[in-house]
């Protein structure tokens, strides 16, 4: 199983980061040796990763080729291909029922595609075949997503929501957790600190101890985005981030998405119905309808495309 190796590397990576933090932020000299050792172990493990033998062109982070997802006779996604460049904001648009969310679900492995390839350049610089990964392992490669219908953990506070997102960053064993040994307490502090930084970045600090239930929709949407930032994203997948937001909030969101891309040096892939937002911030747009690609290119190119106009506005009878 390929993910076993990556799991180990991811753990080593967080272990190393933990010791670095202890040395740098906490000034704990006793951790220096451990930090050095952890770094060395991580380097070795990354080098030892077996080559996957898959190549994608330079500067491409996600390569989708001939993706098909059939539900019985329904062809939700039918032979879709596109490439997402590193560091860009990529918009996936299409009329209702075009299969946009299905594409997302395939990339994040919530659905196993019927056929097609999904190649992704992960955090360790390796190109992997996403179809071989399990749904909960996708995150260690750097793909994080939000949901269309806001899946915030309602029973716990906002801060705890972010700690849940940082789940994979804990390296403590079950025994350490059961007896609350010092390692867990330190790790908890490191992850909590990161969470507070993310909350600060998102402007959610005043809400940090609020239970997630009963907060305004705009805040819940922000929590979801904050959660993705907790996970060291390489590719953030946003499913309709502007749905249900008013104009002010949408404008704020547009700024935020660009700020995230610049600050966190990640790629953003989004599905959105708000054309204003998409045309404003996306560098590349792919328009799909009934699971097939209609057009791909810059916002101007897509807007000018005849097929796209037909799909959205229908055929004018005079022609």
């Amino acid at each position, binding site marked *: 199983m390929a993910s076993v190796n990556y799991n180990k590397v991811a753990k080593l990576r967080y272990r190393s980061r933990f010791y670095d933090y202890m040395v740098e932020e906490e000034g704990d000299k006793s951790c220096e040796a451990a930090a050095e050792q952890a770094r060395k172990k991580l380097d070795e493990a990354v080098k030892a990763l077996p080559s996957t033998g898959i190549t994608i062109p330079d500067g491409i982070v996600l390569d989708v080729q001939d993706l098909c997802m059939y539900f019985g006779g329904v062809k939700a996604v039918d032979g879709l291909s596109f490439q997402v460049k590193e560091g860009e904001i990529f918009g996936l648009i299409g009329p209702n029922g075009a299969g946009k969310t299905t594409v997302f679900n395939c990339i*994040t492995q*919530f659905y196993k595609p019927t056929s097609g390839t999904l190649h992704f350049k992960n955090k360790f610089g390796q190109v992997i075949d996403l179809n071989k990964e*399990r*749904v*909960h*392992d*996708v*995150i*260690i490669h750097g793909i*994080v*997503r939000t*949901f269309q219908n806001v*899946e*915030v*953990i*309602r*029973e*716990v506070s906002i801060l*705890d929501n972010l*700690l*849940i*997102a940082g*789940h*994979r960053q*804990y390296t*403590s064993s*079950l025994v350490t*957790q*059961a*007896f*609350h040994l010092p390692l*867990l*307490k330190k790790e*908890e*502090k490191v992850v*909590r600190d990161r969470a507070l930084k993310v909350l600060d970045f998102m402007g959610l600090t005043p809400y940090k101890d609020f239970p997630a239930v009963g907060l305004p929709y705009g805040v819940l949407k922000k929590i979801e985005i904050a*959660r993705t930032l907790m*996970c060291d994203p390489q590719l953030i997948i946003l499913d309709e981030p502007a749905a249900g937001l008013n104009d002010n909030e949408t404008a704020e969101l547009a700024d935020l998405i660009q700020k995230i891309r610049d600050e966190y040096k990640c790629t953003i892939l989004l599905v959105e119905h708000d054309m204003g937002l998409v045309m404003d911030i996306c560098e590349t747009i792919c328009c799909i309808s009934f699971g097939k690609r209609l057009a791909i290119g810059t916002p101007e190119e897509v807007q000018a495309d005849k097929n796209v106009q037909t799909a959205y506005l229908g055929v004018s009878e005079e022609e």
Partner: protein
Amino acid sequence: MENNTASPKNILKNPPVQIILFGIVLCLIQVLSMNGVISSSFAFALGNTLIYAVMAIGFCLLLGYSGLASLGTAGFIGIGTYAVYYIMQENGYPLFLAFLVTLGISLGLGVVVGFISLRIEGIYLAILTLGLSEIIRNVLMAIKPTIKLELANSRLFGIQMNDRVAYFLIVIIYCLLMWVTSNLINSPTGRAMVAMKNSTSAAQAMGISLMKFRLMAFVIATVYAALGGLLYMVYVRNLTTSSSLLLTLTTSLNILGAVIIGGSKSLWGTFVGTFIIYGIQSMFLSRIPFFVKNPAFITMVTGVLIVVVVMFFPGGIAQIASNISASFKKRKLAGAAAAAEEKKGEE
């Protein structure tokens, strides 16, 4: 972690301190009953309640935190009781070995059963575990319908385990499990379980393996139930499987009821819940002549309580407690705000 300012109020808010204090109180009750201040049957009933509370902690983690409903508790209790019987009574080994064997068997069984059954959810999981529990009960009954542990064979590190010593053992194990469970709840594991209960897709997207944490919660509940069985056998020392209700659905349902009455997301609530279901009945109601004459009414009282709690306080007794403390806090905040206003006015 929170700031650890060492004011006495904050120390009392520390879960380990609370648990130790509670343990001391429980031990004191037994000491008082030794001196004749409290009747010994009262202390015995309290010990019995604590055994069920041990099982309820595990079930609380399973239902309240992971959102899985299992009705197989009784079967796993049986594993504990029979392990004690065969190891201590038949072979004369000490309690410590029985403890290890119970842990081992319940761990193994929990993993196997969990691995097969946790692919299904909700009511189907409850039905499956119920069936399994009945299978275990019938197998155990076929092996030996009545088991009895002689007092002479019940030893831990050379100490004779009579009722009173066993009571202290129960308190120690109860407090230890409370501590471990509250630690787990306040660690990534516990948070992963809550995430899984609230939204499976969000949990998966955050890198939480559903199978791993479902299995973990299930195994923990299994082990706690088996430990409850072990304690029961050491404390009560005999069990007639065919006529006793211990290994039947009744126990599983009672524990489910206890956890719901107490508040499925509160560890202290589980104790209150078990106390209401098992404690009140054996400690107070069974002294009132009316209930002694008509024992069926005792069950009715519990039933009415469950109905009342579920209807008016879906979060259980723990919800009532937190409501009260929240209203106090609100009053305090309002008071502070009023004081601030007044100050402003003066200026």
